[in-house]
């Protein structure tokens, strides 16, 4: 997936200012930054939901799966009905087989007949992700996927996502949790006020902190990251 000089304006405010980056098959890219940095806007443009005012986005490797921050599910339908609906809409040859596969993947086989509204936020998010995976995407975009999940659910989620990346799926996710980004993001894309400040592995970001804000270099990753942003005027 490739984004080149992407600009997005909402009225007079520039939400993204010429953001460029590339992600290859199997990459696990964490998009991080403070509130209003443009993370969700970037992901929605990569997903094709919003159109950029300038610049280009391309995915040469097929389908892009998108998992929105808030679960995009029909709460009055059951787990199975939700999956079946989206499998049918995706045009799967055997939608029921796809549903079984996703139920297995999410570990919700036993709860297939339950109305989604009665499930916990974590389980709803698992179905949300499963629906994003139904298109068997080459690129999976996750907008703050771990919000509202407890540590155990979060751990299972990242296990699941990492397994996808190992199988060659490009995973791009946004998060506010810097530790999570460090742990699961093979690469970090740091956005602030619509600008891409950094693009590289977590170790390189720590090196950048050491150069620009040495007093925070040996602190925890989140403190180092905040010092970096501060040094860059954000």
């Amino acid at each position, binding site marked *: 997936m490739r984004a080149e000089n992407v600009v997005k304006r909402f009225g007079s405010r520039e939400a993204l200012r010429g953001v460029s980056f590339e992600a290859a098959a199997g990459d696990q890219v964490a998009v991080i930054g403070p509130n209003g940095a443009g993370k*969700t806007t970037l992901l*929605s443009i990569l*997903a*094709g*939901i*919003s159109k950029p005012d300038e610049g280009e986005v391309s995915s040469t490797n097929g389908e892009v799966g*998108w998992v*929105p921050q*808030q*679960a*995009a*599910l*029909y*709460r*009055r*339908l059951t787990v199975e*009905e939700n999956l079946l*609906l*989206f499998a*049918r*809409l*995706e*045009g799967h040859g055997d939608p029921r087989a796809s549903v079984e596969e996703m139920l297995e993947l999410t570990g919700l086989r036993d709860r297939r007949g339950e*109305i989604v509204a009665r499930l916990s936020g974590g389980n709803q998010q698992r179905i949300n992700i499963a*629906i994003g995976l139904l298109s068997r995407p080459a690129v999976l975009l996750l907008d703050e996927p771990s919000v509202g999940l407890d540590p155990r659910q979060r751990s299972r989620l990242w296990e699941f996502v990492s397994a996808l990346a190992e199988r060659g799926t490009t995973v791009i996710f946004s998060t506010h949790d810097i530790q999570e980004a460090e742990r699961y993001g093979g690469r970090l894309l740091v956005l602030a006020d619509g600008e891409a400040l950094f693009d590289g592995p977590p170790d390189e970001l720590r090196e950048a902190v050491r150069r620009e804000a040495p007093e925070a270099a040996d602190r925890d990753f989140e403190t180092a990251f905040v010092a970096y942003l501060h040094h860059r005027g954000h």
Partner: protein
Amino acid sequence: MGGVRWLLLKDLQILRRSPLQAGLLVVYPILIAVLVGFAISRGPEKPRVAFLNEVPAGTRITVGGAQLPSANVKGRICGRVECIFVADRAEAEDKVKSGDALAALILPANLVNKINSLSTLTPGVPEVEVLVNEENAVKAELVDDRITSLLAQANLAVARRIGSEGGRYLNLIVNGGEFKALGGSFHILGLRTSAKILEAVTPALPKGLQPSLKEVTNFAAQARDNLDVAKPLIARLAQPIKVDKVVVGGESPPLEIFAIAVAATFTLAFVVVLLVAGSLALEREENAFPRLTRGLVSTVGLLGEKVLLGMAVGLVVTLLMLLGMQFFVPLELGRIGLWLLAILFSGAALGAAGAALGAAAREVRAVSLLAFMLTLPIAFLSLVPSGAVSPVVFDAIRYLTALFPFKPALQALTAAIDETGPGIGGPLLHLTVLFFAYAAIARLALRRFAAV
């Protein structure tokens, strides 16, 4: 198209899962429709009036010493109002005070005597008494109008009867015949026969007398001819001005047919607008809209699916309602094809309007409120007849209601149900134009408001 099918199935599953909401969606508009239909079909044409007739039984109006047959004033009055027969004045007063009756009409015992005195040298003034409760200005005016109209009808009935009797006497004078009075029967020769007798005997008379007799014969002929002319004049006296009603526009269907069409349109409008607007807003409330429209279903496909959903549910509910009405008012079932046509065209236009509303809102509750706030006043404005408000206001209402599918839907359903009514083509064309206009607005609104 496949996607639309699965979305339709999904919406029906959601409806099935929400029996209370689905029930309310159907029951509430039907309730409103039945109330409106009932209010329209009842109308104010038969107000309850307490009726006290103190005129002794068998008393008749007399003309020239002969009693006229009964003019059936009681029957005429009670045919136009719902009479509550009371025993005395106090009861009549109670009925009016309590609001049980809109007014009380008392025919005093001396009413016929007073009418009979009109043909004497000392005429009285026949009076009837009307008791009203003027607690409300509108009610007071209604009572005044109604009682004035009823008395005019009663006066007319009496005058016609007198005129008719007068005409009969004139006929007797002109043509002769039997006259029954005071228990006996008298033969009246009549002017026509008198003239013939005189003409027959004239040649037998001395020549000197013949000119004088000729004058008498001529007078009899002239009197006969002039009295013949006077007969229709007397008849016209009862009703000098005749109403010649010519319908120049707005052919109106029978009241019960119109009431059924109003009830059916209310049901269809509420079911379709609320369902389409609500289900479209639900896609956004559940955050599913962006997921669906990024390649799974086109915006047009999604809008089409919602309109189809509204049309399908609206068709079932409205058709059941019309078939239910069949038990109360016989409808021409042979026109069911036209019913379907009217319901489907109306459903499409109302659905597109609902989609335009739903596209502009993010929450089901907000859009439901918006749909009610818009549909209810538009529906009521669509029922305002010309002449009920000033011409300027009526023109404004006409243009406003033409922008919303309720009125053309009502016209289409009325035309479909009423076999004597105007054609259905005009309303269907109007609905088609509105369908495309609202579909375009809905598409624009989705693009404008649904963007992430």
